[in-house]
């Protein structure tokens, strides 16, 4: 069965687009540096903030949203500092990672309260529009305490969108969403970006970023490690050498055969088997069984050694 998900309709903004600027921003806690000298400019469109857990994405987002003072540097929205300046929330919306909602309210009450706190001229209409945007109409009169994680997340997105902000910051927005909700959220972010809003969302999953945004900011260990078009970064990632641990019935014979294989860039014979470096992941994993079969060698174990996200990111830092 194919489910077709229509992109939510958003109006073209009448106000000029907003720019979020970070100039040499650092943040430390005692001796621990969480964010280290980050400079970036975010304009209209969707930008993904990618990085492993603990890279400083949340700290950076909190500084952008005015919930943390930079230890050094400046975060400004259209030239105004975001710290100690509640006025910026007229143009800025935040969906934090922490699943914090007033569970005793219904989604409609919750979003309506947001609209009223923003002093919108027609809070009821704004609340209904925002709830429709995240497709929560059916459950809007139930208490939030009864919702699934994905529904709570969508409710929070609706509350953050109720005043139609120029800038929307989302911390790990796809966490806890099922695939359909994910697709819908991606379509929503796309349409907001296409309509000229500045959207930044963080994620530690490359595929999420790839599907939503054209530009990516990669953070590793508090630093901005890479910045630019996701395709370029993706290519860097797929072309990087992969390391495999291989154990077989005859490691030495297998090593000799493998070194002749084009996709293999290096083989190391150790006590516990072979360490193989391959330039092309797919070509190597297809070639290995054929080579082993032709030589009458049985492969006992094949383990990719550097598939952790951290190793992918640290490769990017070096690239």
């Amino acid at each position, binding site marked *: 069965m194919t489910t077709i998900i229509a992109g939510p309709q958003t109006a073209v903004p009448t106000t000029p687009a907003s720019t979020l600027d970070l100039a040499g921003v650092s943040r430390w806690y005692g001796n621990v540096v969480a964010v280290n000298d980050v400079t970036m400019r975010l304009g209209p469109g969707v930008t993904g903030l990618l990085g492993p857990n603990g890279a400083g994405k949340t700290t950076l987002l909190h500084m952008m949203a005015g*919930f943390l003072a930079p230890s050094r540097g400046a975060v400004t929205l259209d030239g105004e500092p975001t710290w100690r300046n509640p006025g*910026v929330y007229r143009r800025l919306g935040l969906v934090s*990672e922490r699943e914090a909602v007033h569970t*005793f309210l219904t989604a409609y009450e919750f979003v309506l309260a947001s609209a009223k706190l923003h002093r919108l001229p027609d809070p009821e209409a704004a609340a209904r529009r925002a709830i429709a945007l995240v497709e929560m109409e059916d459950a809007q009169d139930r208490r939030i305490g009864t919702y699934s994680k994905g529904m709570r997340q969508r409710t929070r997105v609706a509350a953050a969108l109720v005043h139609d902000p120029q800038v929307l910051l989302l911390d790990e927005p796809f966490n806890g969403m099922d695939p359909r909700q994910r697709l819908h959220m991606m379509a929503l972010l796309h349409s907001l970006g296409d309509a000229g809003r500045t959207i930044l969302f963080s994620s530690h999953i490359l595929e999420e970023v790839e599907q939503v945004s054209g530009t990516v900011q990669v953070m590793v260990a508090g630093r901005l490690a890479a910045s630019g078009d996701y395709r370029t970064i993706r290519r860097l990632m797929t072309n990087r050498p992969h390391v495999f641990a291989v154990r077989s019935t005859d490691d030495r014979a297998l090593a000799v055969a493998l070194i002749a294989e084009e996709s293999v860039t290096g083989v190391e014979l150790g006590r516990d088997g072979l360490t193989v470096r391959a330039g092309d992941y797919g070509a190597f994993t297809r070639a290995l069984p054929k080579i082993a079969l032709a030589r009458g060698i049985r492969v006992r174990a094949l383990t990719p050694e550097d598939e952790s996200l951290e190793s992918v990111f640290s490769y990017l830092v070096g690239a």
Partner: protein
Amino acid sequence: MSTVTWITARGLFGRRRFLLLLPLPALLLVLAVTSRSLGVDPSQWGPPVLVGLGLAVVLPVVALIVGTGVLGAEIDDGTVVHILTKPLPRWQIVLPKLAVAAGVTAATVAVPLYVAGVLAHSVRLGLALAAASALGALAYSALFLALSLVTRRPVLLGLVYVLIWEGLLGRFVDGTKVLSIQQWVIALADRMAPTDLLSTTVSVPVAAVLTALVSVGFTVLAVDRLRSFSVAGETS
């Protein structure tokens, strides 16, 4: 009613913690009614029930539960971010919350104190206790609301103030009474309805000025701290 007031009240009455408010005022009522119906001399039961229980325990403890709850509970569970991501000057968040805290505390404490005061002496004493405890509720609420913004353990610090400073030191070291909200409430109530049941060494002008100073000072502190409210990252 402002939206902040509405959310605060819903949050306060929607939590089980609210039920903690009921036993103490009920105990105060039961003791007063029992003493009166058994014909005990008011000079015997008046001071321990009105001051020892009412002003020294019920008022500060109720104020502590409510005052640290109106903002502290939202800080604990992170929902405060929803109110803070709005273009509201921070005083428009602090003042409604203070109003809810002081109002709920005053309503919860003033009624049993009024009844106990009437039973112990006169309607005038009842009214004086109710009015003075309402002023005390405001001062305590401002203090505890500010505490929930300057420390992560507002309830503990509040208890230390109530039990150690006001309760223990206030009894043995006379000088500490000058900085005791409880003593200010006694001084103000005694001024409004002079009886033999209430006594303190703190003068009425000092009590009035300090009650106002604490209420305003801690509210200003709370507004300033809320302007610099920081959300720590998950990994920090």
